[in-house]
């Protein structure tokens, strides 16, 4: 039995979120997460995985009809869009909703993981955006 290295004693559970709304989200933007627990984060969004992990993310979008009514997201590993465990769904009829995706990281070592907006249609107008992005994860031992 082996364990992956961590930087000190941390829980198997980690999470991150943004404490303020993010407005004017455009295609390719990173969804901001400025608060982290049990994991290292970055001001521009994302978390640094320090062990094999399962990561789940979701967000609450805001806006009126026609704003942010179609959103696609992907986790990215470093600058590369990560296709594994990817899922998105927003209901066009209901502009305020949660969008989610999962990511399972294998291997060892730290890598940067971001929750990335890959499509926002139509382009958001003033007042629309993301009320809250959330990332939850579990370190696993193999």
């Amino acid at each position, binding site marked *: *039995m082996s*364990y*992956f*290295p*961590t930087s*000190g*004693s*941390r*829980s*198997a*559970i980690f*999470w991150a*979120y943004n*404490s303020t709304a993010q407005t004017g989200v455009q295609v390719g933007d990173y969804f901001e997460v400025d*608060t982290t*627990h*049990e994991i290292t984060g970055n001001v521009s969004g994302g978390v640094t995985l320090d*062990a*094999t992990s399962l990561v789940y993310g*979701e967000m*609450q979008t805001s806006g*009126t*009809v026609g704003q942010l009514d179609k959103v696609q997201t992907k986790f990215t590993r470093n600058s590369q869009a990560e296709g594994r465990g990817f899922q998105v769904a927003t*209901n066009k*009829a*209901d*502009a*305020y*909703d*949660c969008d*989610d995706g999962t990511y399972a990281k294998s291997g060892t070592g730290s890598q940067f993981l971001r929750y990335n907006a890959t499509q926002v249609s139509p382009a958001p107008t003033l007042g629309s955006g993301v009320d*809250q992005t*959330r990332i*939850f994860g*579990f*370190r*696993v*031992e*193999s």
Partner: protein
Amino acid sequence: MTYQLYAGTGSTPLARPTNLIELTRGINQSVATGTALILPTIRATNSGHGVTVNNTTGEITLPGGYDYYVQASIEINRNANTESFRIAFTDSGGTEITAANGGFDCVYEWHNSSTTTNVPNFTLSAVYVSTSPLSSIFLKCMSMTSGSVMTTNTSIIIVQVPK
């Protein structure tokens, strides 16, 4: 090879297993603002987890000595197409647990001006996550008009990780 959640400093195997606990309900429940969702049926991967649910109040007790990730997957039959609602975890006093304390609500906000019928229900997710958890929590409707119903497709999954 065995797999388990990783916890600790990196070399000592966990003395106790991680428990996965499922809470469900066998019949629909009428809900409105202030209603606690009651999911009294418990299944778990291991005995001895100590999590309980009050069948009357919906109170969920979380024994100490663990970190918790609690995720509710919620399906609501709204009383009207135009209905919006919000559901969140609260403490024992009924106060919503904020994001700073590990509480993350779920919101459905109706925006469409046209009538939508004959479409499947959506499910939304509310989360409570903490490494210094409360001993007692509730899953409550923070805003919802009467006449709506929580369906039996609603469930809570609790990941209980030994410290």
